[in-house]
Every structure is written in structure tokens, then in C-alpha cells.
């Protein structure tokens, strides 16, 4: 069992005890502990259950590569799932609970899966749950959902806040180990603007634990002095607890800073996402140790050798009393020496046939038992390491001998952290000695200038010895600075003695010829429960591509993204396929390097700041008068104004009837208003619109259609000719910005010699539609310009004064009523609205919302962009041929509308629909035809595009697109309902109210 040592611990402060809870149990640690070291210090080896088989799992690593120790942290509004105990710094009051167990961590029902593991191989879900089809939804999925998965999703809104931060630097150095420090120092001395970031709380990485000596002093002293030197350089910024999350095109990088996770403080942002533009990026991200694949390598107490010495040296925590170090390289001896010095028993099993390097000799000299040519046949124990069975590494594991032990330290060699190098396309090469992939500088990620913008340094570049790390990092830092434009000279590189070592021996199976039974208990991916035999099965079943094997077995697909399992899994696959490892290749490394919080990604963009809301000048009045808001683009428009005691449907009905019978007001300010001006504006307007706009007389209005170049109807609205070279185009509310961009695109990229200027003046004007039989009376009451039928007939506009307001008055109607749309300067909008309300009170003036607007336009058979159109509808489908010029040689969409599919007589065309029972047709309902199509689906012959209850007619009204519709007037066809029944509707004219236009043309 793990325990706290009486002395030592670089990071902990024993004078500052910290209390926390684990699964509700009170525990204690010290300031400087991680949650992992504190748990181990309290003897808590079992920290979770595995994903698939619910096997007991313990802490394996000491950093972000940890696959097992995932925790739920906090509660309610600060709850966070899937936090790694190894990267969670301890604070007073921390609450943690383990995951994926039911009913408790110690007794877990799902452990049955482990007993059934022979029946749960790779691809099991794909094979087993396919049949019978209906079982998936009702039987399999609910059970699997309940038992699978790791942490729970939070149920409460996150109480913390987050922020984004932009930075532009010459050189970004990722990783605060000795390589990162050396690279940043060299770059800084050369005069570059440098940002150095380190994911953990401490600088110096592994070097102080590994006993490196730099410039003649212990690494920890050199680190301290170098951090101080960097801190004093004005052109260098350093940030701890900031992880390089991803590298993207052209020197863009994301970093993830955890500001208060170690010391919660609601007044500060919890996380900060750094959006960095760097001239050069140096990845000094170190290396991660590999586990070894032997049976039982997932029992709590089996750890990485480097993690074992981290816990002993940094936190004074012993993972056990009797440690077996199993290694294939010299580095494992460092762990043996460290644990022996701490007073623990240790045996080294070295898979190599001999070990005579300086570290091995040092271990023997210290009295440590070293057994060469040995491996582990299996580790046994009930929920923890109890016995290690030792065997000949080169054989099949027969005749093993036991050692009593409570901890196994695996030293399987090191893999450079190449993630950031690879994110943006950097390629890797395989290094035989060391058996790892390292960055290939010939195939680096390239920037805009075609030069490499990422440089790897130190262990991340495959340099594992201290002296080589420092030289490599110095060169990388100096080169990065020079390439980013710095002109100074870096000082001298730090030096270290050359560490001699013997070659490591790649070990992918332990023992080499392990039986199936042993291999089926040898884990590759702890977090996703993938074993050696699963990868072998995938290869046998034909999943030869590494990307396919990954998806079939889920190897490397967990939240650790295969940091521990990747190389071992590739090697097993290569073995099963009898191929070279570099031939098999790696899977794709994708950002983020380590999971980052959703909060950090969102930053400040939440709640009211999520996106801007556009408000008309009358917004406050609407809000104070019962507006039921509807989002239209970024605008908020009143759907209806709901009065006390009224529901929204009643409000809509009231608004329609009041407008039809007396006087309604609509805030139409959101309608797009584009001014098109210039000597060639008429020619341009004729290209933009299907109608002839160049001939529109000054003072008149014309309804116009705009199509895309592929012929589809894109927007509509009324155009007014302002003067000889000026047109005002009204667009739909959602279309203003889009149509403005559309016009600019054609002007700038096709007809750039045309003299035309387009301005979007939508927000410069407030616009009110004054609608209803009493519309003229209320305007005359306000006084000012002549708005009589004679002075201002239908489809004309005039400029003048309404009351005290200078206004443009358009006699246009979207409701079929006598209607004036009046534009006043935006600053006058609210006052004008108020004046209309006051003057209109004697007529029962009724502001109406978008739903009443929709109903009234539908009663008149007017189309609505987005209802009658969906990007596949041409104006001809909607019976709008009258608005398509036959005289013009060209307009956008004209050629496309001549294509054979567009002229097909069987295209669905617009008609009105009247249900026989007066009910409202379901929105989106299809008209069914006879028989089935080639896919066995019911033939359809049309669909509903708009459907409402008409308060005017007191029945349902609808429009729809129907095959040969206009030729089938009076025919009754069936429309489907969601419940499988049908409703009969008669094909009628779309105009169901005042077809002669007698009401609007007065």
C-alpha cells in the first residue's frame, strides 16, 4: 500500500496541511500535493473503474498522460467531470469522487463484464447489437448508456467565468522543462519577443527528479536561476499552469491557462484561452514513458517508473514498500536508485540479456538485486499488486518464480511528445535506437512563407540525454529568434556532462512469446480497456490500416488520446501484420493536446454576450407592451403584443382583426434598405433584379425579385426610384447584409468598371407601416404632406413631413390594406411611433407583430422568402412570371432558368390550399400521391409552405407547392399528419382575401 514518507518532497509544504474528500471520505494532504499524490499519501490506490470491464484501476502516471485517475470534482454549479487527479492541485475543501462505478468504487456490479471479457472482444458492439434491429433502441442502448461512459455531464449552469486573451509574439516556447527554459533564454537573449508556457505549476520538468547536473550545479538550482533570468528580461513573458493546446495554420496556437483551479476564487476567470500568433513555435514538450505489456499490468500499484520516482522525490509519497522495477533501458535504474534511497525494497528486472551501463552498475553497487533477461509473466493480486511472477523474457512465460511486491514500476522507454509538432501537418520519422517517432525537420509544418514555423527541441525532438537536450534547445531557440526577425546574439548554451547509457531493447510483448491467455490480460489502452489481443484480433479481421484499427478497437480514442498506448499499440499491430512499425504509421494527432474546458472555449461569449442582439429604435416600447419576441437574424422582432389575460394566439387574432377593420402599426425598421447609386446604377439594377428596374420612373415603387446565378429565388422587396441615378432597395429583414454583400461581390469581381456605389442604410431609418382602412385618416390628423389617393397613389412614394417628422412615405402594402410605410431618421423613430399611437387612439390603433403580418400576407397570397422559398425554388414555381422581364438580355439567374430541369412542366408550383374541414394544415406536411417510388417510399406530389389560422376567414388557410398545381384548381388531395392520418384539402387560388385589391387601392 502507498504511504507518505517521513522526509523529503520537493513540492509539498508539510507545515500547510490541506483537507479534502474522496467519495465523501475526509482525507488530508499538504500544500503542493496533487490530488493524486494526496490520495496515494493516504493509501488510496484504487481510484476508479475501467470503462468497459469495470476493472479496478489505480494511478499510473504523474502528469497529463494519466489514463485512470479521472475524477468528478466539485458539486452543483462548480461540478466538473473527467478531471485528472494527477493534474489537479490540492486545495482545502476539494471534493472529488471516482467515476464509472455502481453502486460503489469497492463493490461494482459492472465488474461482471470482466468475467465476461472473453465475450466482449474488439468490435463486440458492432457485431452483437446489430440484430434484432428493434432491440437497439429499446434494450441494448439504454443498458449500454447506463453502464458506459466516464463522468456525468454537469446539470447546472457553470458558476465560473472564463476569458480569451490574444497575444502576438515572435517566438512561442511550449514546455517549461530545461529544454523550454534554454530555448526561451536563447531566443530572449537574441532579442525576440518570447512567450514561454508550462502546463504544470513547476518549472524544470523531469531534470531535477532525474538528478541532472547543469552548468555544474544540480538541475533545480539551474532551473531557479534561469527562471529568474527570464523573469528579468523585458521581452520574455513566462506563464506556468498554461498548456499549449494546439498548433494551427500559419503560426496560430491555442494555450489553456488554469488560473484558479488550484485556489478557487470566483472573482477571477477560472480558465483563460490564449489565442497566439507566433512567428516561430518551439515545442519543448518533453517525452512520455511507455508502459510494458504484461498480464495484469493494469492492477492498482502498477505504475510508470518515472511516475514512481516523481511521487517519491516531489511529494514524498511511496507507492509501495516492495517495488519491482521492470525495464528495457537504463533509465529504469534511476527509479530503482530513488526508491532504494527512500528506504524501500526494490528488485530490478531488466528485459535485456545484460546491463552494464553506469546506472546499472550504480544500482548493483548500491546493493540492488538486478536480474537480467527477465520479464514479468503476470502480476497477481485482488484489486492490487500482491505478487509478481518473474520469467525469462525471451520465452513463453512458463515456470515463473514469484516475488512478493506491492508496486511495479514499468520502464518501457520514452516517446517524444510530438502532438504539437503534428497538429498542423508536421511529419515524423522512426528512430530505431529508442524505438520512437520523432519530428522529421525535413517535413515540418510550413507557414505562409513556405518555411517551417514549428521547431521541436529537447526530448520532444528525440534528444533524451541532458547535454543533448540543452544543446538542441539552445539551437532551436536561437534559430527561432533569428527566423522571426530578431537580430541579437544568444548567450552561451548551458552544459551538462554526457550521460553514457546502453541501448534500450524494444519490448512489445512481455514475455516475448506470451501465450494468448497472458496477452489477453495485457492492457495497451487503460482508459478504453483495449488489450494486446484486441489489436491482434483487429488485424486478423482485416483492419490493417492503423486508423481503422484505432476505430475498431477504440485504441487511443479515450480522453488521453493514446498518450501511453499509441506506440505500444502500433507495435503490436505491426507485429500482427508482420510489418515494420514505421510502415504501419501513426494515427492523426489532433488538438487539443489535453482536454480543455468548454468554458475556456466559449470565453466571455455566453448569456447576453453570446451574440449581439439588434434592436430597433422602438424596442423598449415593444418590450414594455407585452412583446412576445421572435429572433429574425440578429434582430428581435415582436411576434405579437400579448395583453394581460390574453394568450399569444388571442393576441395575434386581435391584431389581425384590428388592422383589417381599422388601424394597425408595424415596426418595419428591420427591413433592409440598400441605396444603389451611380451613373451605371440602372444597368446594375437590371442585372440584380429579374424585373426591369432601370425604367422605373422617379417617385414610383416596384416589387422586385432577386435570384442567384443558379436561378433560385434569393430575396424580394420593393424598389423605389429616388432620383435619376439612385434606387432604394428594400430587402427582407434577414437578407439585408447578405444582399448587400451579394451586390458588392458582383460589383467588385465581375463588373468592376461599372460606376455604382451601394450603401446599407438599414439602421439609419426607423420605418413604420401604418395599415388599415383608417391609415390615411391618422396621417391626415398628424398633418403635413398630402397623402391623398391623388397625391400619393398606390406604389408611389414621396418625401415630406408627417406632423413634425421629416419622412419618406411609401404607398406599398404587404397586407392588402390601405397602407403607408413611413421612414423617418432612426433617432426620431420612437417619437414618431409615440405620435402615431397618440393620434391613432381614436381609431383603436393596434400595434401588430410578425405573426399578424404573416397571416395577412398569406391571406393575400404574398410569398415569404424562407417559407415559399428554400433555395431550390425559382420565381416561375411561384407564379411570379409577371415579375421576370422578357425584354432584358441578361440578369442574374436568367441563363440558369433556361436549363431543362428549370423548365420542366412537372416542377411543383404554388397554389392555395383549403382544407375541407376548415382545419389548419400541419406545417411542412406533404401531399401524398399514388404508390411508392424506387426507394419504397410513398410518392409525394407537393408540400405545404405556409399555413395559418385566418382570423379574417375564421378557418385554416395555406399555400403550398403542388405538381401541376395551377392546372388542378378544385381538385382535392391528401396531406399527411404526423400521427399517420391524412387531411383532405382543395387546390384553390392562393389569394383568398380581396382578390381584386379593392381595399389597398383606395
Amino acid at each position: 500500500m502507498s504511504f507518505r514518507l517521513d522526509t523529503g518532497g520537493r513540492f509539498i509544504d508539510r507545515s500547510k496541511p490541506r483537507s479534502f474528500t474522496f467519495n465523501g471520505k475526509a482525507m488530508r494532504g499538504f500544500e503542493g500535493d496533487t490530488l493524486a499524490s494526496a490520495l496515494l499519501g493516504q493509501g488510496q490506490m484504487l481510484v476508479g473503474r475501467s470503462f468497459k470491464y469495470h476493472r479496478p484501476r489505480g494511478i499510473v502516471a504523474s502528469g497529463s498522460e494519466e489514463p485512470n485517475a479521472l475524477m468528478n470534482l466539485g458539486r452543483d454549479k462548480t461540478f466538473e467531470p473527467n478531471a485528472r487527479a494527477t493534474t489537479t492541485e490540492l486545495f482545502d475543501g476539494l471534493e472529488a469522487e471516482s467515476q464509472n462505478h455502481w453502486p460503489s468504487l469497492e463493490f461494482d456490479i459492472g465488474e461482471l463484464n470482466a468475467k465476461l471479457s472473453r465475450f466482449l472482444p474488439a468490435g463486440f458492439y458492432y457485431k452483437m447489437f446489430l440484430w434484432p434491429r428493434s432491440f437497439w433502441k429499446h434494450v441494448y442502448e439504454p443498458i449500454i448508456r447506463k453502464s458506459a461512459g466516464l463522468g456525468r455531464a454537469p446539470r447546472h449552469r457553470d458558476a465560473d467565468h472564463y476569458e480569451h486573451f490574444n497575444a502576438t509574439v515572435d517566438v512561442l516556447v511550449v514546455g517549461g522543462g530545461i529544454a523550454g527554459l534554454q530555448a526561451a533564454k536563447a531566443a530572449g537573449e537574441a532579442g525576440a519577443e518570447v512567450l514561454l508556457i508550462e502546463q504544470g505549476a513547476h518549472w524544470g520538468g523531469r531534470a531535477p527528479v532525474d538528478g541532472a547536473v547543469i552548468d555544474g550545479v544540480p538541475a533545480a538550482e539551474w532551473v531557479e536561476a534561469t527562471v529568474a533570468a527570464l523573469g528579468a528580461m523585458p521581452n520574455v513573458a513566462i506563464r506556468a499552469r498554461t498548456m499549449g493546446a494546439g498548433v494551427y495554420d500559419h503560426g496560430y496556437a491555442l494555450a489553456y491557462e488554469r488560473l484558479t483551479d488550484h485556489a478557487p476564487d470566483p472573482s477571477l476567470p477560472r480558465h483563460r484561452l490564449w489565442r497566439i500568433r507566433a512567428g516561430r513555435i518551439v515545442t519543448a514538450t518533453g517525452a512520455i514513458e511507455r508502459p510494458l505489456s504484461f498480464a495484469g499490468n493494469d492492477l492498482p500499484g502498477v505504475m510508470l517508473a518515472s511516475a514512481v520516482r516523481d511521487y517519491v522525490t516531489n511529494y514524498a509519497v511511496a507507492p509501495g514498500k516492495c517495488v519491482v522495477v521492470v525495464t528495457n533501458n537504463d533509465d529504469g535504474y534511476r527509479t530503482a536508485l530513488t526508491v532504494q534511497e527512500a528506504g524501500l525494497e526494490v528488485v530490478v528486472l531488466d528485459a535485456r540479456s545484460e546491463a552494464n551501463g553506469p546506472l546499472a552498475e550504480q544500482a548493483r553497487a548500491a546493493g540492488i538485486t538486478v536480474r537480467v533477461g527477465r520479464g514479468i509473466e503476470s502480476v497477481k493480486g485482488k484489486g492490487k499488486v500482491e505478487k509478481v511472477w518473474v520469467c525469462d523474457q525471451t520465452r513463453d512465460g512458463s515456470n515463473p518464480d514469484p516475488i512478493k511486491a506491492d508496486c511495479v514500476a514499468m520502464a518501457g522507454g520514452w516517446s517524444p511528445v510530438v502532438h504539437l509538432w503534428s497538429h498542423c501537418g508536421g511529419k515524423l520519422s522512426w528512430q530505431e535506437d529508442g524505438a520512437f517517432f520523432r519530428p522529421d525537420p525535413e517535413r515540418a509544418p510550413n507557414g505562409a512563407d513556405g518555411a517551417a514555423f514549428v521547431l521541436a527541441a529537447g526530448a520532444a525532438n528525440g534528444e533524451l540525454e541532458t547535454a543533448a537536450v540543452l544543446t538542441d534547445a539552445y539551437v532551436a531557440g536561437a534559430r527561432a529568434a533569428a527566423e522571426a526577425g530578431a537580430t541579437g546574439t544568444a548567450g552561451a548554451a548551458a552544459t551538462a556532462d554526457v550521460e553514457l547509457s546502453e541501448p534500450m531493447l524494444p519490448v512489445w510483448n512481455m514475455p516475448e512469446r506470451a501465450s494468448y491467455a497472458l496477452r489477453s490480460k495485457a492492457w495497451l489502452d487503460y482508459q478504453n480497456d483495449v488489450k494486446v489481443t484486441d489489436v491482434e484480433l483487429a488485424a486478423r479481421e482485416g483492419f490493417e490500416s492503423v486508423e481503422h484499427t484505432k476505430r475498431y478497437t477504440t485504441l487511443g480514442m479515450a480522453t488521453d488520446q493514446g498518450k501511453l498506448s499509441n506506440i505500444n499499440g502500433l507495435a503490436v499491430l505491426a507485429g500482427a501484420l508482420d510489418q515494420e512499425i514505421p510502415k504501419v504509421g501513426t494515427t492523426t494527432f489532433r488538438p487539443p493536446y489535453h482536454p480543455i474546458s468548454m468554458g475556456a472555449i466559449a470565453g466571455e461569449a455566453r448569456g447576453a454576450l453570446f451574440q449581439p442582439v439588434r434592436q430597433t429604435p422602438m424596442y423598449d416600447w415593444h418590450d414594455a407592451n407585452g412583446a412576445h419576441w421572435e429572433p429574425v437574424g440578429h434582430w428581435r422582432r415582436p411576434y405579437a403584443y400579448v395583453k394581460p389575460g390574453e394568450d399569444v394566439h388571442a393576441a395575434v387574432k386581435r391584431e389581425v382583426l384590428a388592422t383589417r377593420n381599422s388601424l394597425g402599426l408595424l415596426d418595419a425598421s428591420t427591413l433592409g434598405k440598400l441605396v444603389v447609386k451611380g451613373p451605371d446604377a440602372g444597368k446594375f439594377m437590371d442585372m440584380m433584379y429579374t424585373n426591369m428596374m432601370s425604367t422605373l420612373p422617379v417617385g414610383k415603387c416596384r416589387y422586385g425579385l432577386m435570384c442567384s446565378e443558379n436561378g433560385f429565388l434569393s430575396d424580394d422587396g420593393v424598389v423605389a426610384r429616388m432620383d435619376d441615378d439612385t434606387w432604394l432597395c428594400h430587402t427582407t429583414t434577414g437578407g439585408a447584409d447578405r444582399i448587400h454583400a451579394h451586390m458588392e461581390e458582383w460589383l467588385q469581381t465581375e463588373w468592376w468598371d461599372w460606376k455604382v456605389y451601394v450603401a446599407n442604410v438599414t439602421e439609419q431609418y426607423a420605418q413604420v407601416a401604418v395599415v388599415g382602412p383608417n391609415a390615411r385618416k391618422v396621417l391626415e390628423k398628424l398633418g403635413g404632406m398630402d397623402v391623398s389617393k391623388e397625391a400619393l397613389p398606390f406604389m408611389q412614394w414621396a418625401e415630406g413631413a408627417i406632423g413634425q417628422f421629416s419622412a419618406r412615405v411609401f404607398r406599398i402594402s404587404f397586407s392588402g390594406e390601405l397602407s403607408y410605410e413611413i421612414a423617418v431618421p432612426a433617432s426620431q423613430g420612437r417619437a414618431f411611433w409615440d405620435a402615431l399611437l397618440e393620434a391613432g387612439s381614436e381609431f383603436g390603433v393596434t400595434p401588430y407583430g410578425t405573426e399578424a403580418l404573416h397571416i395577412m400576407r398569406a391571406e393575400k397570397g404574398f410569398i415569404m422568402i424562407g417559407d415559399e422559398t428554400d433555395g431550390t425554388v425559382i420565381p416561375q414555381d411561384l407564379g411570379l412570371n409577371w415579375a421576370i422581364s422578357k425584354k432584358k438580355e441578361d440578369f442574374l439567374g436568367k441563363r440558369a432558368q433556361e436549363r431543362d430541369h428549370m423548365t420542366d412542366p412537372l416542377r411543383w408550383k404554388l397554389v392555395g390550399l383549403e382544407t375541407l374541414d376548415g382545419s389548419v394544415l400541419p406545417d411542412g406536411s406533404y401531399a401524398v400521391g399514388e404508390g411508392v417510388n424506387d426507394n419504397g417510399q410513398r410518392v409525394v406530389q407537393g408540400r405545404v409552405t405556409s399555413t395559418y389560422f385566418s382570423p379574417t376567414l375564421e378557418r385554416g388557410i395555406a399555400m403550398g407547392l403542388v405538381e401541376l398545381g395551377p392546372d388542378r384548381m378544385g381538385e382535392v388531395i391528401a396531406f399527411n399528419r404526423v400521427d399517420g392520418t391524412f387531411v383532405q384539402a382543395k387546390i384553390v387560388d392562393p389569394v383568398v382575401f380581396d382578390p381584386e385589391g379593392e381595399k389597398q387601392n383606395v
Partner: protein
Amino acid sequence: MLILKCPYCGVACDETELHAGGEAHLTRHGPGSSDADFEEYLFMRENPRGVHFERWRHVYGCGKWFHAARDTATLEVFGTYSAQVAEPPKDVRAAITAKVPGWRWRDLS
């Protein structure tokens, strides 16, 4: 995230300031054109792995459209230039040739 220099305002734009507009140097075919020409214009695009010419708009900046010559595989940018030309200018083509000898794009080289 790409950086492209807007040739109008001179700003080195982050991709988030830009709107991508697809392939550059299309020839518009309108009424009177053959079905084949019109379909070529409307639907057929180069989609190369390597040298490509694209339209971009500095939409959250000066609002101008411009052209960019870049490599779709390496993301190298050879140059940006006015949208108001029918084909890439000589200096841009020379810059590409210097980096990618023997490049071809449609009938350009």
C-alpha cells in the same frame, strides 16, 4: 488559421476577418451560352492539391474582394492581388514558379 495580406488596405488578416469565395478567375457565361459552357462556369471547379487561385473578401475590414495564390497542401501563400484582373499578374506567377517549378493550373503555368 490562415493569414492573408489584403492588397487593398495592407492588413495581414486573420482568417476570421475574411470570407472565402472559392475559385478565382471564373468566366461568366450568361444567356446565349451553351449548356456545357454554362455548367462548366456554374459547377465545375479545379480543387487541386497544390497551387490554387482563390477569391477572398476582407469582410470584417475594408470590405474588398481580392485574390490569393496559395498552395492547398502546404498552405504557403505566394501572393495576394487585386480581384479586378482576369488572370494572375506576372509577379505572382513568377513567385510561384520560384517555389514550385513546373506548376500548372488550368492552362496557366
